[in-house]
């Protein structure tokens, strides 16, 4: 009888360790991997030291430092224990600079597939104007001092963010886009990431620096290598990317980001913009894919008269989780912040919209607006909105925020149906119309069209109808 329990114990696999909502399952964030990454790229001393500093911060920080948000972290759908990072810098394919790779209507194009750069090409005009689009590895070879200035100290990456510090420690490669003083390009720069090989982790940094009075628009697309068809239960892939923007005085950046990774993927994105006097940044961001995506945007309105226009849309389905945080800091005078988040949530998807505008004492004449809106399309969808303000300077032009959550507007539905639309078509029209504000801001026509297609495909793919019997009311 005593032999039996032992045998049984041996046969039974150990119960999987329970993952709590704040548990990060990545298993490679350690010194050995940092050194390996630095070694593979033959990093200079300062860079290795910088990476190790990032690792130290990562180890010391909790996953969420802001007490406002600690209850709203849920990483349980991220199962990344088997993910392995790309160690070395991206390999640039021969022929990546071929002119024929430049898409119609773009002034530059970079395409990165896993960690291979398959396209990296500038138009004649962009090249002649002195615009630079290159990998960080190439930057190091060409101008190591500049690279150091741009990256050392984690630069614009938030010091209090565990995941940003992880990217600081373990990035394997990235891109630099530099636009010299006074250069204004009409056609956008197009960047495309094709990622998602199972059990891989890609950590990259994109640095964008605009000289004084420069003006440029960028379209960044993140898509899956295997399309959106893979099942959510397959092995996951991890993508961590930063967009670090420095805007010289009077410069303008319009940035459209389309994220449509597969449901097997987990993405952490950090975007930050430091604005000089009179500079403007326009973010238009669409989050469609991933099982779990955690996005953080930091806008520093340091220069007088600087402005940020930010619009984010989310279209959720299945059991996707979108964790969107945005910090806007008004420091200079007469700055403007207009932030809008809109989510359409179907099936069991969830969005957390956490926007905080801080108006410091020096920020006279601020105009700040935060809007967080959600349209819930099914019983099990969930929206959490926390539009917050911290105001230390009463002399403002306008400070307001608004939030609303609701179902599809019945009166709008009725109107469209009375015009002859089928109920399903009417609903689709309303939802896509709700999300259109961001679509309209994408500065490249082909990308706009693509986004509209992706949204429509998502609408068609979602689960229609409500689950059976509602739970009884609380006693």
């Amino acid at each position, binding site marked *: *009888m005593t032999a*039996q*329990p032992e045998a*049984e114990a041996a046969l039974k696999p150990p119960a999987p360790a*329970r993952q*709590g*909502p*704040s548990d990060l399952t990545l298993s490679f964030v350690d010194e050995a991997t940092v050194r390996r990454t630095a070694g593979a790229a033959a990093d200079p001393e300062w860079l290795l030291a910088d990476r190790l500093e990032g690792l130290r911060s990562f180890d010391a920080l909790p996953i969420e430092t802001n007490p406002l948000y*600690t*209850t*709203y972290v*849920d990483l349980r759908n991220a199962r990344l224990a088997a993910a392995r990072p790309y160690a070395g810098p991206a390999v640039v394919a021969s022929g990546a600079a071929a002119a024929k790779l430049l898409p119609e209507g773009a002034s530059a194009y970079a395409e990165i597939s896993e960690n291979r750069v398959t396209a990296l090409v500038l138009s004649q005009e962009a090249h002649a104007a002195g615009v630079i689009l290159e990998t960080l590895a190439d930057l190091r070879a060409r101008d190591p001092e500049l690279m150091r200035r741009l990256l050392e100290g984690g630069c614009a990456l938030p010091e209090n963010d565990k995941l940003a510090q992880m990217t600081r420690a373990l990035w394997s490669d990235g891109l630099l886009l530099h636009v010299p003083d006074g250069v204004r390009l009409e056609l956008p720069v197009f960047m495309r990431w094709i990622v998602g090989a199972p059990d891989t982790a890609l950590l990259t940094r994109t640095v964008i620096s605009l000289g004084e009075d420069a003006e440029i628009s960028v379209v960044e697309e993140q898509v899956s290598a295997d399309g959106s068809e893979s099942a959510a239960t397959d092995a996951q892939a991890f993508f961590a990317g930063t967009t670090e923007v420095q805007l010289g005085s009077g410069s303008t950046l319009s940035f459209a980001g389309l994220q449509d990774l597969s449901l097997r993927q987990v993405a952490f994105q950090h975007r930050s913009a430091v604005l000089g006097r009179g500079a403007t940044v326009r973010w238009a961001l669409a989050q469609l894919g991933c099982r779990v995506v955690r996005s953080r945007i930091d806008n520093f309105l340091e220069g007088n008269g600087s402005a940020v226009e930010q619009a984010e849309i989310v279209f959720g389905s299945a059991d996707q989780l979108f964790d969107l945080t945005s910090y806007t800091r008004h420091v200079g005078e007469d700055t403007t912040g207009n932030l809008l988040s809109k989510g359409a949530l179907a099936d069991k998807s969830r969005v957390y919209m956490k926007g905080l505008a801080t108006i410091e004492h020096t920020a006279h004449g601020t105009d700040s607006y935060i809007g967080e809106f959600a349209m819930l399309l099914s019983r099990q969808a969930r929206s959490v909105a926390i539009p917050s303000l911290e105001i230390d300077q009463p002399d403002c032009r306008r400070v307001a925020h608004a939030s609303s959550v609701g179902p599809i507007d019945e009166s709008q539905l009725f109107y469209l149906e009375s015009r002859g639309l089928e109920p399903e078509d009417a609903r689709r029209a309303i939802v896509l119309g709700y999300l259109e504000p961001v679509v309209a801001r994408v500065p490249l026509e082909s990308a706009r069209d693509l986004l509209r297609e992706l949204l429509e495909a998502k609408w068609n793919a979602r689960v229609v109808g409500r689950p059976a019997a509602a*739970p*009884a*009311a*609380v*006693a």
Partner: protein
Amino acid sequence: MTGAPGDRRRIDLCAADDVPPGTMKLCDVGDELVLVTNLGGTFQATQGICSHEYFELDRGLMTGDSIMCTLHLSRFSLIDGEVIDTPAELPLAVYPVVVEGDRVLIEVPEGPLEVNR
């Protein structure tokens, strides 16, 4: 025939009549507490204390097949103990129920009762 699975024991909790459908009862098991609930005739048993912070779950609100701890509004499924609503992070331990005659029992491994906190 392997006999009794592992070394397990049965613990008597309460009378079936003590827990009519749609209600719950907190029962003492040595140092621990077990929450017995009756979901439309089927008995479920979970740990009796919230996995988030110490609070007796019978002071919570039962809705359908979930229980909400009224201290911080965490919700758990009464069937598999999983967290439906944060801030709780750990699920409730669930114990297999056995009904013998008119008594409700749980059948658990020997040793201390498994509880998540």
